[in-house]
């Protein structure tokens, strides 16, 4: 039976069909749907396989790895920057190796569409000396789960599956197999020289790892290298992997070049069997390598001068390889004329916080209370506080708290003390906010910390957080209180406010400012708490509709400063009007309007 599946659903299905007993993840685009699909599919197949949303990627990785140490098949999935967080266990696990098949699924985001970087996880795999499989479609991603587990168990090594956004978020008809009972853990076999190796034994493990990688290239390098297109007359060849291969295939057909150019697919870009690949491609006059995003295959083929790709500038060094970019590269490679395309007429609409988003109210109050403040922020929907001028920095998960401390120290040394208001969401706080908070308190930093608690991981599709009782599979877990964690970190000033009341929020901000400037002041925290309106689990009371009266003078405060997408200016009169199909009737704009022209009806 064939079913239309999203790439991430295909991966989840592949995990279950191949007996994966445990999967762990932290949500992040484009990887989020892998874990949620895994638990849904396990439930409907009545499989005892377990999936968990872990607090962060490092924890997900380590938890799943111990299942593999015990002999069960396991997987940890994440987005590429999540692998940075899990990098420590990732590097070390290559040395210790695994028992049950262990897959690291790291979803890359060339573009980037929803990420801080365009980094290539295959490069991380190469650095760790872990084999990596690079699927070109949802269907292939599912097949590679099987291959990945096979290599992992045969060589007792973690294997990376590296899909990209266009695999994760593509839909395709995928053949479904049976979901068997998951592979049961045979039990943990003690072997301290391996699992708890001291540096002396780490050298031995490194030698073993090098031997494994060589053996894998030998055995699987040839099998994972296929000719896809090209007749005998072809004088040029293209070597490609991932979704770039799929787009290259379509382009060669569209440009009617399939007889003139041979196309080879590499399913496992690391470790490459350079001998086998070079033997096949060296007879061609010209060779082009097309891969996303870094020259991983190119670096492994020591044939400078003959091979074109990222390293000689034949393929642009950044950006997604969309069909238009690829067409230019392929035309130049074959010597066809390159047509310059007109750039699009309009700019894409920028994303905004949803109508009724509690973060908007919090940001508005922050901006109004401290117009000259410094606003470090973090990763999540609330990055869009940018639009309200209340977000100055976004670095990586949890950095807002460490950076707020850094800003404080930088200004203190100048003898200044500007208001510093750090914002962080609940899921991000649990993920990476605790160590920097303990650190900031311990080292005497003084700033205001606003925890934007909407009781969900909203940006990635409303996955549960450790702050609520619901687990990934719907079972009841233990909620870990944010208040208790903040207090236990040594924070003395803490208030909890619903930001829908701008007055309460403003009051709390002023009090926090006093508290952190007091003689024994330090970090002053505010939990700005209101459920996300997108979260189906959250129940909002039905409210009376909000309307704009004749008192509106068209000052645009509600449109420009408050930036609610449900309010627009009438193109003829310039007066504000509310789009009732978008309005959530939160009523925060009533408090924002300087003319008192917004009321409930």
């Amino acid at each position: 039976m064939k079913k239309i599946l999203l790439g991430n659903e295909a991966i989840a299905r592949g995990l279950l069909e191949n007996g994966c007993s445990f999967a762990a993840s932290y949500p992040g685009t484009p990887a989020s749907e892998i874990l949620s699909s895994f638990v849904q599919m396990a439930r409907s197949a009545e499989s005892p396989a377990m999936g968990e949303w872990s607090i962060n990627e490092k924890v997900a990785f380590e938890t799943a790895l111990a299942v593999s140490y015990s002999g069960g098949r396991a997987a940890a999935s994440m987005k590429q920057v999540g692998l940075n967080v899990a990098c420590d266990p990732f590097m070390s696990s290559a040395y210790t190796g695994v028992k049950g098949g262990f897959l690291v699924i790291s979803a890359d985001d060339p573009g980037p569409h929803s990420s801080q970087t365009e980094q290539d996880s295959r490069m991380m795999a190469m650095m760790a000396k872990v084999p990596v499989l690079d699927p070109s479609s949802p269907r292939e991603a599912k097949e590679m789960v099987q291959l990945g587990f096979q290599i992992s168990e045969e060589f007792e090594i973690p294997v990376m599956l590296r899909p990209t956004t266009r695999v994760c978020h593509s839909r395709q008809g995928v053949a479904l197999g049976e979901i068997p009972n998951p592979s049961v853990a045979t039990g943990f076999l003690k072997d301290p020289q391996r699992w708890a190796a001291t540096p002396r034994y780490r050298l031995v493990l490194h030698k073993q790892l090098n031997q494994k990688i060589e053996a894998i290239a030998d055995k699987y390098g040839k099998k994972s290298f296929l000719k896809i297109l090209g007749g005998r007359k072809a004088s040029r060849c293209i070597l490609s992997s991932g979704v770039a291969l799929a787009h290259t295939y379509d382009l060669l057909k569209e440009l009617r070049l399939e007889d003139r150019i041979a196309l080879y697919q590499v399913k496992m870009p690391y470790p490459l069997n350079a001998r086998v690949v070079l033997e096949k491609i060296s007879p061609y006059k010209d060779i082009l390598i097309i891969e996303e995003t870094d020259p991983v295959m190119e670096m492994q083929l020591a044939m400078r001068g003959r091979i074109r790709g990222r390293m000689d500038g034949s393929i642009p060094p950044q950006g997604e390889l969309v069909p238009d970019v690829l067409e230019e590269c392929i035309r130049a490679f074959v010597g066809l004329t390159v047509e310059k395309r007109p750039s699009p007429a309009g700019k894409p609409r920028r994303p905004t916080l949803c109508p009724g988003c509690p973060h908007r109210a919090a940001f508005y109050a922050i901006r109004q209370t401290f117009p000259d403040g410094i606003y470090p922020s973090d990763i999540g929907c609330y990055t869009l506080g940018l639009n309200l001028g209340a977000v100055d920095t976004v670095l990586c998960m949890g950095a807002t708290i460490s950076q707020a401390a850094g800003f404080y120290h930088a200004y203190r040394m100048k003898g200044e003390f500007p208001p510093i208001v750090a914002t962080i969401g609940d899921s991000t706080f649990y993920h990476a906010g605790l160590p920097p908070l303990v650190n900031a308190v311990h080292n005497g930093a003084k700033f205001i910390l606003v925890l934007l608690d909407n009781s969900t991981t909203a940006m990635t599709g409303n996955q549960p957080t450790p702050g609520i009782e619901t687990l990934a599979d719907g079972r009841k877990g233990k909620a870990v209180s944010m208040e208790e964690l903040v207090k236990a970190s040594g924070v003395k000033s803490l208030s909890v406010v619903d930001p829908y009341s701008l007055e309460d929020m403003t009051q709390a901000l002023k009090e926090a400012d006093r508290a952190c400037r007091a003689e024994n002041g330090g970090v002053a925290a505010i939990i700005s708490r209101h459920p996300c309106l997108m979260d189906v689990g959250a129940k909002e009371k039905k409210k009376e509709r909000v309307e704009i009266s004749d008192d509106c003078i068209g000052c645009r405060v509600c449109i420009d400063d408050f930036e609610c997408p449900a309010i627009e200016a009438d193109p003829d009169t310039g007066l504000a009007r509310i789009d009732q199909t978008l309005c959530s009737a939160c009523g925060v704009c009533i408090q924002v309007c300087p003319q008192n022209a917004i009321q409930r009806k």
Partner: protein
Amino acid sequence: MKMQIGITGRGGQGVLFLTRILSETALEMGLEVIASETHGMAMRGGSVISTLKVGAFRGPLIGSGRAGVMLVLDPGSYDTFSSLLSERGIAFLNAASSQAHPHIDATDLAAKMGSPLMSNLVLLGFALGHERLFCGYSQVEEMTGKISPSRFREANLRALKLGYSAIKKT
């Protein structure tokens, strides 16, 4: 059969649901299909695009000038992606007026129906009325009924029909 389709709008307008209906319809008809979707931050009210390729394709994205049909839920987003449309292609717009393309005020019609969020299906019905898609009205109607959540099924089908019958009148 080979057809490349672009579907664009603002996040939240139902671009993903149209992508799903058309992908499932293609599969049901025994055609090869691959589609790409926008997830993540852009879904928060930003411009989003889905691309759908029916036939012997491998890659999910569409190059400039290669889309045979475009479904446009938000004319503002169309400005960003109009370069995808081929010279002989046709774009169906959710708009009160347009000089260049067949259009229907799907938002208004859906609002009058009492379900402003169903404008995506009104537009799809309208496009099907022009008989330029790879599938016919009845196939899409059946699939819409099959994959709609039960509480929206009836309204979805009414919206689809509303768009489809609008073309018969103009």
